[in-house]
């Protein structure tokens, strides 16, 4: 157990927690049950951008398979995978791709644990077709605050299951996951890339139902304005067939060697408006005007940023903010206004991604729902950032949308109350699963997700207004 300063991937909002690092459920249980008045928070690989996996003054249980020694049980006939929640998607893919199976959903990084993936109900480039990961989970093993470990699933205590999928680790510590994988013939992707000149064209093209390419995402140039507002590069893909490449997943080694690492110390302001504008122009022009096909490896298509270890350091000491939200279908006008607001906002972003989203699952606090999502990185440290984000918050909520808690680092409670109509329902189930009030996090406290200081854990004053 060590006292550590922790933050999210954005490297902002640091706090001090007592960290227990283990992949052993018995040790995790002890750490949870004896966690003290500040409670406990589960942590995986720390890829949540905000403060979801840290606990100021409290305990953090880093449930992580550092040695890569945890077994992965993949039934090669049925594609059902059983593994500890401490195992990462990277480890899963190393095991499964050579055997002809792929994860049904992956976020933009494979460096997340299965536990973290379920707790954030991650979605990927195929959300509009395949939904988020929750749809493909058969069972979750979960450690509750009283030390009990129990199993839940869509058919086994479904309310507990759907409170845990997308529940940001606040219902319990996820110990095991049973996931339905999907068959793939190769370790390659067939990819079509094209330039799109503006946001309206973007909406039109992305709305065309194209069954041949289940994976689809657009990079948006957030610095472009005027007629080029929302111009970008659309990438669609599908798994390559054996006929196309001649090599199975077992033949092609699934290589995920990181190509380089970001330097330890990066001067602040390396990524500024000028450098970002230059990058965006280059990136846009690089893409072909007409659709062009190519073949890419799985890591290159799904997880390009994982090729640069610790890329989050490029933003320097003040870190950065990830902002992701959804606007409902039919509200493309709201998305256009928001893109315009960012373009005007004076804070450059070079990583902005637009995607069409499909229907939601039954997760009460799960983010993905039908509509359009925009996810972008913004350097922190500018004092124009807070007012800009608050203006955008209002626009998102006004349009009937909501924000992704796994990315959030700045929202105030009203935006979660307004964006998640099932919040109270979720809180009720959560309190049922955690009556002692152990599971918490800095995020949960900032957003009022869990009862203040735990129900019953502290002596509550008797009468509210009597002093």
């Amino acid at each position, binding site marked *: 157990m060590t006292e550590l300063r922790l933050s*999210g991937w*954005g490297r*902002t*909002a*640091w*706090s*001090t*927690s007592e960290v227990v690092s283990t992949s052993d459920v018995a040790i995790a249980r002890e750490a949870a049950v004896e966690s003290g*008045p*500040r409670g406990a928070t589960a942590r995986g690989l720390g890829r949540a*951008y*905000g*403060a979801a996996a840290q606990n*100021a*003054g409290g305990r953090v249980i880093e449930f992580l398979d550092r040695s890569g020694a945890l077994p992965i049980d993949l039934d090669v006939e049925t594609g059902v995978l059983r593994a500890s929640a401490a195992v990462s998607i990277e480890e899963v893919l190393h095991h499964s791709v050579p055997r002809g199976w792929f994860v049904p959903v992956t976020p933009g990084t494979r460096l997340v644990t299965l536990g973290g993936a379920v707790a954030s109900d991650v979605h990927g480039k195929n959300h509009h077709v395949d939904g988020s990961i929750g749809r493909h989970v058969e069972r979750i093993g979960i450690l509750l605050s009283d030390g009990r470990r129990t199993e839940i699933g869509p058919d086994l205590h479904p309310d507990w299951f759907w409170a845990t999928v997308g529940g940001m680790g606040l219902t319990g510590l996820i110990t095991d996951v049973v996931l339905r994988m999907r068959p793939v013939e190769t370790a390659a992707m067939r990819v079509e890339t094209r330039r799109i000149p503006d946001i309206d064209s973007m909406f039109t093209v992305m709305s065309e139902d194209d069954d041949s390419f289940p994976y689809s995402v657009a990079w948006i140039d957030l610095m472009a304005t005027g007629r080029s507002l929302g111009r970008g590069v659309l990438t669609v893909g599908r798994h390559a067939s054996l006929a196309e490449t001649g090599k199975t997943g077992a033949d092609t080694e699934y290589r995920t060697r990181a190509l380089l690492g970001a330097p330890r110390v990066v001067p602040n302001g390396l990524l500024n408006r000028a450098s970002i504008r230059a990058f965006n122009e280059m990136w846009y022009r690089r893409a072909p005007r007409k659709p062009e096909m190519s073949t890419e490896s799985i890591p290159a298509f799904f997880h390009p940023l994982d090729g640069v270890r610790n890329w989050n350091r490029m933003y320097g000491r003040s*870190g950065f*903010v990830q902002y992701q939200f959804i606007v409902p279908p039919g509200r493309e006008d709201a998305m256009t206004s928001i893109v315009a607001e960012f373009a005007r906002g004076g804070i450059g972003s070079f990583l902005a991604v637009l995607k069409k989203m499909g229907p939601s699952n039954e997760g009460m606090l799960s983010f993905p729902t039908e509509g359009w999502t925009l996810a972008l990185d913004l350097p*922190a440290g500018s*004092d124009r*950032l*807070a007012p800009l*984000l*608050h203006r955008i918050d209002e626009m998102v909520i006004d349009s009937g949308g909501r924000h992704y808690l796994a990315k959030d*680092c*700045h929202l*105030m*409670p*009203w935006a979660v109350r307004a964006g998640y109509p099932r919040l109270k329902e979720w809180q009720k189930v959560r309190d049922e699963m955690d009556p002692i009030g152990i599971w918490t996090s*800095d995020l949960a*406290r*900032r957003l*009022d997700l869990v009862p*203040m*200081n735990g129900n019953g854990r*502290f*002596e*509550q*004053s008797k009468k*509210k*207004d009597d*002093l």
Partner: protein
Amino acid sequence: MVVNGVGEISTVWVFGGTSDLAIATVAELARDGIARVVLLCRDVKRADGVVTMLTERHPRMEVHVRPFDGSDIDRVPDVIARLTADFGDVDVAIVAHALLGADVDLLGDATGLRELGDVNYTGTTVVLASVARQMSLQKYGRLVLFSSVAGERVRRANVAYGASKAGIDAFAQGLDHVLVEHGASVLIVRPGFVRTKMTTGMADAPMSTTPEKVGRSVARAIRSRKRIIWVPAQLRWVFMVLRHLPTWLWRRLPV
């Protein structure tokens, strides 16, 4: 202090929620973003104006008012427990409540003396320590005490007040020695003469300042690592000299 990813504060507690200096500080902090403010004061009705002002300027900010009697020392730990139960963690706590004791006759009013000492010194030590305890559990927090130059060297005009400020100032400095080991810290604010409700009708002093100026300086200092600030800043040097004046000269000064 743990701020969110864009430098905004979650929760501010204000003891002495109708104090002009505290209000000015909160108003300034709110411009950079606060999610929730809890004002604690003796007479909650008097806070209505503050609540209106803050909620008009910042419609998304939650503003709560709670009764707080600085002389009811035994209740203080319970008050703090109630605050954490209702509002959770505290990022910034401002302690600004005090009695001026202008009508306390030093030689004749033992009760008045005692009351002032209870509120300004003894009670405030318990408030500071109780809040510090919560911050030590959180491993973060900024505890702000409104002290005064009146404590730097006591004047005939406000002996009891000045002396209580001298005492609480020293206590806060000591508390900081303990708090920093837990990741939180104390900020002591020493304003000079400020034109406020408390000083209405009193003759203006040289280098006097306004609540707005104090608010700006304090808000800036809260976000820094500063331990002690003087407002205006040059008072530090002024008092460095004044402290060493011979007594007969000090007594003659029109300050």
